[in-house]
């Protein structure tokens, strides 16, 4: 499998007249076939613009985009039957007067061998509202209908733009199960989210996007592993400089609050033995010694900054 399902290389998209702001500013990533790729980023990071370029809704100003090996705009006719799309909730794209089941049957009618709409309605807990007009559905029901429409044509690849926004915990779990099942069936999934738990739970590959650029990418393990930290409690006022001297370069030791020591290391291989040896040599009994991986959220906040974004 030489090519990826989605290949994005140095893509740029600017909005507005001069001085145009770049919503996507030299962004590159790859999404594999039959895997879940999460585009993770704060609001306004360029996730939706990126997805909409992949869907052929927008032309990139610069760079190269390939979806299933094809150009999303030039080869749109060939791509559309193969790619499922779930737009963001505020633009679900259902006529307000259409009924849920009726609209899903329409989406099914565009495909040669669709999943039977009734099965999907049932699967997503929408059977009881099949004859309800779209505008009378709750936000969560509208979201689930939109998700059903994205997968009804048995696509090879689906783009889900914030698929769980506005869902209650049960519906969110149902959506996650569906995504996992799609992946297991060999469907490639590219989803955007700003929920860390969603990315941690679902994604085979996470692409952290900020200000239109990729700031980090990899599996959850790859993203969180390099940032291990070790903590222990002991008497306050230990010789942290002495401990530091025994550790490899790039490590840090901090005592905060008093009596609690945190050792951070970029390469964690021998961290535990080094620290416990040092403690033994110095007659210190380290309490509650433990290694903790940093969560994706901590990695994300470090990459994208902690300040509240304006706009």
């Amino acid at each position: 499998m030489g090519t990826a399902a989605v290949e994005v290389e140095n893509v740029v998209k600017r909005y507005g007249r001069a001085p145009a702001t770049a919503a996507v500013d030299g962004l590159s990533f790859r999404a594999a076939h039959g895997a879940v790729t999460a585009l993770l980023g704060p609001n306004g990071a360029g996730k939706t613009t990126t997805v909409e370029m992949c869907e052929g809704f927008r032309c990139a100003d610069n760079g190269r985009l390939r979806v299933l090996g094809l150009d999303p705009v030039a080869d749109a006719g060939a791509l559309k039957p193969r790619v499922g799309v779930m737009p963001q909730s505020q633009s679900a794209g259902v006529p307000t007067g259409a009924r849920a089941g009726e609209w899903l049957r329409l989406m099914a009618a565009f495909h040669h061998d669709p999943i039977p709409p009734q099965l999907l309605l049932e699967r997503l807990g929408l059977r009881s509202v099949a004859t309800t007009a779209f505008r009378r559905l709750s936000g969560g029901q509208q979201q689930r209908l939109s998700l059903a429409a994205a997968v009804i044509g048995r696509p090879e690849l689906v783009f889900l733009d914030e698929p769980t926004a506005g869902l209650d915990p049960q519906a969110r779990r149902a959506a996650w199960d569906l995504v996992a099942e799609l992946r297991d069936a060999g469907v490639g999934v590219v989803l955007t989210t700003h929920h860390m738990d969603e990315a941690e739970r679902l994604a085979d590959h996470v692409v952290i996007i900020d200000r239109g650029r990729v700031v980090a990418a990899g599996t959850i393990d790859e993203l969180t592993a390099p940032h291990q930290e070790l903590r222990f409690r002991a008497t306050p006022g230990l010789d942290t400089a002495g401990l530091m001297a025994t550790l490899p370069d790039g490590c840090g030791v901090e005592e905060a609050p008093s009596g609690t020591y945190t050792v951070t290391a970029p390469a964690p291989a021998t961290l535990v033995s080094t620290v416990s040896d040092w403690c033994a040599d110095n007659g210190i009994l380290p309490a509650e010694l433990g290694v903790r991986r940093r969560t994706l959220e901590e990695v994300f906040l470090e990459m994208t900054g902690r300040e509240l974004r304006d706009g």
Partner: protein
Amino acid sequence: MQRVEHGGHRRGLQGGHSDTEPPTAVSFAPRPAAAPLPRMIAAQAGMELRVMLRNGEQLLLTMVIPVLLLIGFSLTSLVDVGSGSRVEFLTPGVLALAVLSTAFTGQAIGTGFERRYGVLKRLGATPLPRFGLVAAKTLAVLTVEVLQITLLCAVAVALGWSPRLSALGIATAVVLVLLATAAFAALGLLLAGTLRAEATLAAANLVYVVLLGLGGVVFPVTRFPTAVEPLLHALPITALTDGLRWALAGSQVGAGSPLPAVMVLAVWTVVATVLASRLFKWE
């Protein structure tokens, strides 16, 4: 061989118990392919038609108002339609209004809100090509027009309308309605594809009322000052009304010709189609 027999046996057993399979088991294994174009267009046209017929405000414009105008002005002398039978004068005008209401007003408002709610964009992500969407909308509009014309003709006949029909007259009427539908729909899409949905709603209703007043629908064009009369005859609604009056009554009298009406509608169709296809914004 054994495996096949075994499998066949199992399938036979399960055949009677298909209910026992969990109903929510869905296979998502990729098998993508677009449906044949005619099936896509038929499905989309059916959806368009149902949404149109379910929309109360739209039915008011397309069915209720034309019927009320026909009945009201036929039975009362509120409007001076000149000499001759009132229903004879009113029916072609009200039929023209019905075509206007569906092809122009309904399409402008409907498409304007579809654009706003992202319906056009969402459909753009399906295998249905844009050409297929336009074909489906056209089919739905023509179907509603057939319903309107049937209803209005039935009401008119009940009111004493006795059209002098001829093969030429009917053929002319069909051509006029098709041309007018194309012109009105293109104008409606031009509005819907360039203005905000609310502005389209206001403008489309305003145009409906203004053309109802100016287009010879219920008030004869001859009531207006002679200076503006040629301008009024250049309106697509007037052309359709004039043409239908000839087709449904005058074609045997030999008076006048439907050609000017056909020409006016053809020009509107070409201009509006070119503008709409150039200026229409899908989002």
